[in-house]
């Protein structure tokens, strides 16, 4: 292996080891450290000058107290479960909102499709924070939605939407919609029109052709889109923090508060480790799905 190639690999490799892998090891380590002594520097500190005994005593002082604490305080249990629940419901809602849009795009005239694509991608380039923020004005007690509904006489009391889980669902659907539309659109656009004609030719009505052909064939896009929404939604912080209420429990928010408000770093680290364990399964599934997709395309 020549020098250039070595540099080519080593520079990004070492960067990631230093700024991704090692920090993560530190998180795991701190999650095993003691709460009471957890103001920096943490106890135990890792001291190689102590020799083998130092290493041994270091490991003997690590324990799973923080994780035990997580299981004992039902705040964390509820936060994990509620994150899962919110992510699942929001993903399904996003799918229901995205599918008709993706379908309409795929059926639009070919000369229109690049423009429609751009219209879907444009919000993605716009600040996430601003997109979440834009809903505060709409959903608040005296917000535009309540003004409109009151004005139309549909309600006589302003609805309380902001600071509830409903607002969080709306926020997730809104901000992650492009992630769901794009993969579904990609599969629908590739769909060979003659397959639908073949289905009709063989006796299907248009609706049953949709159920028997279009929907099963767009499944890879649906699966990819669901993962792309579900995975970030679980660890979401900004949306529950701005749109959710004090009773909205999401693990990203708990971690943030544990860290910034309670300053309990070891517990925050333990929360992070558990969150990651929670995400590993869907991430692996997603990875496998993508791989299968790629192989199918070859």
């Amino acid at each position, binding site marked *: 292996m020549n020098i250039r190639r070595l540099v080519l690999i080593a520079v990004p*490799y070492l960067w990631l080891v230093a700024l991704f892998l090692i920090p993560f090891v530190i998180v795991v380590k701190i999650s095993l450290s003691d709460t009471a002594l957890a103001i920096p520097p943490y106890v135990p500190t890792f001291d190689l000058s102590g020799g083998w005994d130092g290493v041994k005593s270091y490991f003997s002082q690590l324990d799973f107290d923080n994780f035990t604490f997580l299981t004992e305080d039902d705040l964390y249990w509820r936060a994990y479960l509620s994150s899962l629940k919110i992510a699942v419901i929001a993903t399904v809602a996003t799918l229901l909102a995205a599918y008709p849009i993706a379908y309409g795009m795929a059926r639009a005239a070919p000369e229109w499709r690049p423009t429609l694509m751009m219209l879907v991608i444009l919000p993605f380039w716009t600040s996430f924070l601003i997109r979440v923020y834009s809903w505060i004005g709409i959903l608040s007690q005296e917000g535009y939605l309540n003004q409109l509904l009151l004005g139309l006489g549909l309600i006589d009391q302003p609805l309380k939407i902001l600071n509830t889980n409903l607002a969080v669902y709306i926020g997730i659907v809104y901000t992650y919609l492009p992630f769901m539309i794009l993969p579904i659109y990609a599969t629908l656009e590739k769909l060979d029109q003659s397959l639908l004609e073949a289905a009709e030719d063989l006796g299907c009505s248009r609706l049953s052709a949709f159920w028997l052909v279009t929907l099963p064939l767009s499944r890879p896009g649906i699966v990819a889109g669901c993962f792309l929404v579900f995975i970030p939604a679980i660890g979401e912080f900004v949306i529950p923090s701005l749109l959710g209420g004090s009773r909205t429990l999401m693990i990203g928010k708990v971690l943030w508060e544990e860290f910034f408000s309670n300053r309990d770093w070891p517990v925050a680290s333990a929360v992070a480790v558990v969150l990651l364990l929670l995400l590993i399964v869907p*991430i692996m599934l997603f990875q496998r799905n993508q791989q299968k997709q790629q192989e199918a395309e070859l």
Partner: protein
Amino acid sequence: MRRRFSWFNATALTFGFAFLYLPMLILIIYSFNGSRLVTVWAGFSTRWYGVLIHDQDFLNAAWVTLRVAVVSSTAATVLGTMAAYALVRVARFPGRTLFSGMIYAPLVMPDVITGLSLLLLFIAVGLDRGILTIVLAHTTFSMCYVSVVVSSRLVSFDRSIEEAALDLGCTPFDAFRSVTLPIIAPAVISGWLLAFTLSLDDLVISSFTAGPSSTTLPIRIYSAVRLGVSPEINALSTIMITIVTVGVISASFMSKRSLARRAADEQKAQQQ
């Protein structure tokens, strides 16, 4: 061929795009509201833009954000392109699986974890939190996005072009510079733009890694909007939305024009 563009499709697209764009539209309209009461319309005014321009805190935060974004996205583009090239072109080296894992993991890692872990690292090595730590953090996660964008272009391009360059006497580095780079340039540029936007946009990781003197714009916005809607933020949002819209639309026009020119050239060549 027959394409059925039914009422269903038209309705789905209308409602879909209304949902995507109405909130931002309302934001823009109300940024020109004269009243401090954000939900009550009190006539057209550019008052809040004036307030914004004279708000030193915001200007400082914007300046920090811009510097961080330029530096980190440039560094991320270099590192990400290297990583992509290594992953696509070097089939086997020790630790390759770990390497590709580290490229993809940050894409799915929740921001809170990335931010927390980097902060703990900076404390462990005794690095003071400031602009440098934000730049390091942003470079790390955005290089992974750049790498994914660039490698998808590298995978799709014809390897024999590179081999032809080597055959004609280029050193591998020459071949990369004079053949590969021009071909993957669009992907590198979009990688840079992506990294730049991600950096501009990031709140969570910046919050963990920023020091008291290095407040970024998203941190500033977040602390302002936690208290509710503010007309100044509406004005700021409008400016940011406008910049992004103009940028994206002009970029897509440029790429469309170059595609159209290419098609026209090809047609001309056919006729000759």
